[in-house]
């Protein structure tokens, strides 16, 4: 057993962990952030994507103790309360969601991309989600949605 402190979606947590616990187990089993999904457990599918200090990571490939002192964003931390984040809005409008199992990871990869690069090309979008597998949509609508989200974010910026 070990005690670690970390920040998840803007809140501080101090938790007991086992040394061999993965970050995904801490998030899901201990803290019930179940929006983070496990599709493969070996770094292939990206369903478990979270943002750690601004970078996407596969939370199945990170041990919980490695998250000590880090800032984590999960899908539960995207958007604020009632209001959807523009990425989520665009995913809904474009019909980019089917079974939904890849979607939290996709939204987080899109967020990490747009945070760094607000107006990506379609190729850059594809690159940005290249670590996330989707078995349902064929990706096109997801790319459309991220493209649209980038426009929403630009409009938001202009009105501010």
């Amino acid at each position, binding site marked *: 057993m070990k005690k670690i402190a970390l920040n998840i979606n803007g809140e501080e947590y101090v938790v007991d962990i086992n040394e061999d616990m993965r970050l995904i187990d801490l998030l*899901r*089993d201990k803290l*019930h*952030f*179940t*929006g*983070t*999904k*496990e*599709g*493969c*457990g*070996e770094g292939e*599918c990206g*369903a478990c994507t979270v943002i750690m200090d601004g970078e996407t990571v596969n939370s199945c490939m990170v041990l919980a103790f490695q998250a000590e002192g880090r800032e984590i964003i*999960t*899908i*539960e931390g*995207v*958007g604020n309360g009632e209001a*959807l984040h523009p990425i*989520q809005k665009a*995913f*809904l*409008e474009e*019909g980019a*969601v*089917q*079974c*939904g*199992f*890849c*979607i*939290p990871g996709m*939204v987080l990869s899109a967020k990490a991309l747009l945070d760094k690069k607000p107006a990506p090309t*379609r*190729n850059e979008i*594809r690159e940005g989600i290249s670590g996330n*597998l*989707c*078995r*349902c949509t064929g*990706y*096109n609508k997801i*790319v459309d949605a991220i493209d649209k989200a980038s426009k929403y974010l630009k409009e938001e910026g202009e009105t501010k």
Partner: protein
Amino acid sequence: MKLETVGKNIIRVDGLAKVTGKATYPQDLYMDNMLYGKTLRSTKPHANIKVDTKKAEKIPGVIKILTYRDVPYNHHGVLFKDHEVFCAKKVRSIGDPIAFVVATCEKTATKALEEIEVEYEELEAVFDPIKAMDEKAPKVHDKSNIIYKYQLRRGDIEEGFKQCDVIVEEEYKTSMVDHAFLQPEAGIAYLENDTVVVCVSTQYPHFDQLEIAEALKIPLDKVKVINPAVGGAFGGREDITMQIHLALATRLIGRPVKAIYTRQESFVAHSKRHPMIMRYKTGANRAGRLIAMEATIVGDTGAYASWAINILRKSGVHATGPYEIPNVKVDSYAVYTNNPFAGAMRGFGATQVPIAHEQQMDILAERLNIDPIRFRLENCFKKGSTTATGQILEESIPLERTIKEVEKQMKKSVVGGV
């Protein structure tokens, strides 16, 4: 008539829950006092087995280990009851379930799996469906390996081939395909008074309910199946995987029991797309008209039938492709082997045959020195066409238009991607 939905962009009802991460898949459910289940699976494709769970039962934290002895009616399956809930005497493919360990945590359950002793007495196995059709081949179940034959006849096949100027004979094979839906199988079962509740991602909740009730020998109204969010399925969730194991465990133990398959276990636990061997003989005349086609299609259904009959029937029905051929003979077979079992997957038997009929079309066009697109337009189904099964197509046959559109797009030489 004023249409309120057709033709409009509608936001899907479960979309909001899915973009916010709130949609609940069975692995997202946690209950007080919950136990974890892990399945012991066969590592041999064909063997008699003896199972000893005594050592594993002694591990602290192991609550119960279920085997065939615990199952009131040890059979299930969508068409034939040819699956065993847990193999009793014999395993028929790698991945067959043998036992289900229920423990206080996943780690303990996994440790217990290693301590279960399985004695395998290996039997000769058959992996090639053509060999499996031979009377002398090892029997996967105690009967012929050929479980289904579909025959389709139209016109006079011999006469038809006599009229052909070109005949092409080839054999085509397709491989096994996994659905690889993104959400691995997961479920949780618990008791609500004397009702067994099973939450599981499934394509077939009402049939799961029936199969659980049959296996447990309890009335149908004492089984409730809840289907939360399903993380993709594509046909791969039409057969039972963990449903009966979970229901039985919770009924015998009285506590909630949860199970999640790893990706690796998911691959061995559910069905595959049927690999097919397709022998085709197709003939046309010099004018570019298809005259006759003969096809023999063998589908490898692995150790269990699942939907093999419906699937090989569909392959037979679609064997000509979307082309009008006056003389047709098709035989399609579904065959048991000791391979992983095959069942429903997108297309349900209609997906494999184009590999064969479209290559036949290309080869014929080349031999006849006709443009392959013209050749297809000449022979494709149009309004009023009669299919090999005798159906007269009266409406909505946009194939000509589709082929022409494809031709137009091909000529534009678009560079890939979106």
